[in-house]
């Protein structure tokens, strides 16, 4: 039996969870700053790190109390080393080190994105080889996992992450932050509009993604319509943007799944909460019936510490321990990535 105390503070959320055996949530406490950031139209790093400092002790105390565990029951402290906002990361890293030092526990530093992938361990046992489509505000990646805790990034965005494209298009359409849920909701009222044709993203590497050109095309289309005195129908533009972005991404994912033949494909990250993406993946994965598709429940799509505990348990099992010299790394690369 392994019990992990996990800490996550890479962006908006200050979070702590106690996880048993990598898939049993004894407690999962999240304190979100999303309302604060909504005022500013985005994540504000200085505000973020100050609020993390205020919240971190509370979430750790609450997580322990809610789990019914004492520090004697904890085998290791897992935490997000990076990537993320430097000021925010520092808070979680320092908290983890302090706890590990005071209670003589091993440290298990993990990569934030691997946590999103392992959030699916709360749905079902992960089976390998596995393909993960990781989609969030800062990431759009295809991660190939031949075995447990073995990561190979086979595709990435060549420019903007999908969540960033959503946020910027939402800003153009005046929808506010965060843009993803706003576009997803608005697009449900939209329709195909032949005047709003957008270019399908093209990349050199078939596994890579691109959203910058699409974002610029939406901007230019919006400007052109206004210049010509035409009324812009935001719902239709949202629909056309979303269909173009998601279909391109899902096409590439399905092609990669057919090529690499994993036994399981998982969706991960904040944008995995997008209802149209969930629908498209479910539809298209029918082309590959031998591969199991796992879509995480909405509560595991956003940042949380439970997922850090899940991947922390895998890292712990593989002896991937850190030291007190490890420093928060905003540019941390995936284990095994060049």
């Amino acid at each position, binding site marked *: 039996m392994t019990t992990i105390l996990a800490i996550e503070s890479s962006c908006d959320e200050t979070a702590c969870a106690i996880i048993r055996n990598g898939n049993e949530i004894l407690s999962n406490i999240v304190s979100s700053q999303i309302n604060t950031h909504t005022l500013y139209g985005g994540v504000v790093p200085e*505000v973020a790190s100050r609020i993390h400092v205020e919240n971190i002790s509370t979430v750790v105390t609450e997580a322990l109390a809610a789990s019914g565990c004492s520090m004697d029951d904890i085998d290791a402290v897992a935490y997000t080393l990076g990537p993320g906002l430097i*000021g925010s990361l520092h808070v979680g890293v320092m908290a983890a080190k302090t706890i590990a030092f005071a209670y003589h526990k091993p440290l298990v530093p993990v990569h934030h994105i691997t946590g999103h992938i392992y959030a699916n361990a709360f749905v079902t046992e992960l089976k390998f080889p596995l393909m993960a489509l990781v989609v969030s505000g800062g990431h759009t990646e295809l991660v190939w996992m031949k075995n447990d805790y073995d990561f190979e990034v086979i595709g990435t965005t060549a420019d903007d992450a999908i969540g960033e494209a959503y946020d910027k298009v939402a800003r153009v359409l005046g929808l506010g932050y965060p843009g993803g849920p706003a576009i997803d909701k608005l697009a449900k009222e939209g329709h195909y509009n032949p005047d709003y044709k957008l270019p399908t993203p093209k990349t050199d590497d078939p596994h890579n993604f691109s959203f910058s050109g699409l974002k610029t095309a939406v901007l230019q289309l919006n400007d052109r319509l206004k210049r010509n005195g035409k009324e812009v129908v935001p719902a239709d533009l949202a629909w056309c943007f979303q269909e173009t972005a998601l279909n391109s991404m899902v096409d590439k994912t399905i092609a990669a799944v057919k090529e690499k033949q994993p036994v399981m494909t998982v969706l991960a990250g904040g944008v995995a909460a997008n209802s149209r993406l969930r629908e498209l993946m479910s539809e298209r994965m029918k082309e590959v019936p031998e591969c199991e598709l796992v879509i995480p429940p909405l509560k595991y799509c956003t940042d949380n510490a439970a997922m850090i505990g899940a991947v922390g348990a895998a890292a712990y099992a593989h002896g991937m321990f850190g030291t007190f010299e490890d420093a928060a790394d905003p*540019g941390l690369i995936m284990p095994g990535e060049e």
Partner: protein
Amino acid sequence: MKTLILNTQSREETHALGEKLGAAAKENMVFLLSGDLGAGKTTLTQGIARGLGIKRLVTSPTFTIQKLYRGGRLVLNHIDAYRLEGLSQDLGFEEYMNDGGLTVIEWSQFAPQLIPDEHLTVTIHLLEEDAREFRFEAAGKQYEELLEELA
């Protein structure tokens, strides 16, 4: 030379221009990139990274504000101040700016406290489709020399 204007006709030409900039960059230099959404700031930075010999793909840092790329001749410290509008606090990014690397800041008007006296400003204008105009302005002798090399 204090000012230089160059045009590119395609993404590839923008990459090549960035590559020349990256190859000519010296340690602790600071480049400020400005231009509208979609102007090509990240595209130019991708070229700069290639010019530094960085193999990793440079992607937009908007979400995490800062990204670091190692493995090249100089560390590339890529900052995007897009989300910092209206704030002027110590964000902890300075410690990465005098660390022997090259700092590229997008939307620097939103983080004026990060701008050193000497720097290179690159203003990008979207002409049409993939054509862009790049206006370089040097503040400081080493940046004037850089422009002479680029011209």
